[in-house]
């Protein structure tokens, strides 16, 4: 049985606004023409937060078994991690 509380519409609106702000941050970093290790890792960190907000709250995985959340988080850790490795290789 699921004991978690249902989320309110206001909560989902907050998640949506957070996603909007994070997207604007990503766009602004791109427009500023910034590059390098720190910027790349910052952009990946922002992307990780956005993807997990969508998975946990929009998809509703927050209220499911740990396994499903672990798959979504693990997916980003592996894909995002390999992307970071590839970019770090290119900086050398």
């Amino acid at each position, binding site marked *: 049985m699921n004991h978690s509380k249902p989320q309110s519409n206001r909560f989902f609106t907050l998640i949506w606004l957070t996603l909007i702000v994070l997207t604007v941050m990503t766009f602004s970093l791109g427009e500023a023409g910034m590059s390098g290790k720190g910027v790349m890792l910052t952009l990946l960190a922002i992307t990780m937060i956005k993807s997990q907000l969508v998975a946990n709250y*929009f*998809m509703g995985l927050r209220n499911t078994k740990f396994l499903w959340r672990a798959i979504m988080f693990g997916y980003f850790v592996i894909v995002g991690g390999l992307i970071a490795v590839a970019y770090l290789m290119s900086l050398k």
Partner: protein
Amino acid sequence: MNEPSSTINQEDLPGDFAIWIFIFAEMLAFGVLFVTYAFTRAKNVELFNASQLTLSRTSGAINTLVLITSSYFVVQGLAAIKLGLNKHCAHWLTGAFLLGGVFVGIKMVEFHAKFAADITMSTNNFYMFYLSLTFFHFMHVLMGMVILAVIIMKAKRGGYSAQDHVGVETGASFWHMVDFLWIILFPLIYIIR
């Protein structure tokens, strides 16, 4: 107490489990392409950075905002049907569908601009990845819009209820996957350099 076999355990994935097999398979396919893009770029950094500058970051960012907002509308539609409000659900999902149309329109303008400049998949490795990844994703948006349209029509007929709305959850899960993948694709292809 005996429960009917169709009863959904709330700790399980939302919607029909079959859609999740599809979602995980699609995520795997995109994941392989994302990583392949990154490692191919590592061998052609100057070419990839120069080609990336020809993309419209504004279009990519607007499309990100459009998909995120459409996902939010789908969340609201699902919340409405959980209260048994078919009409409200249909209205929210229609909003999400229309935003899907905006995404498709912007993407078509982007594709047209590239083809008008004689840029194709064979121009260079960057454009090969850019065109194939974004077109692959574009097809998923179209598929998601078809799914949303079917759900909207059923909701307008009062076909769902607070107890029985697996179809809405299934369609919603697919649409959120489309959003989830674009959230990774946008910074990877348009921004990170």
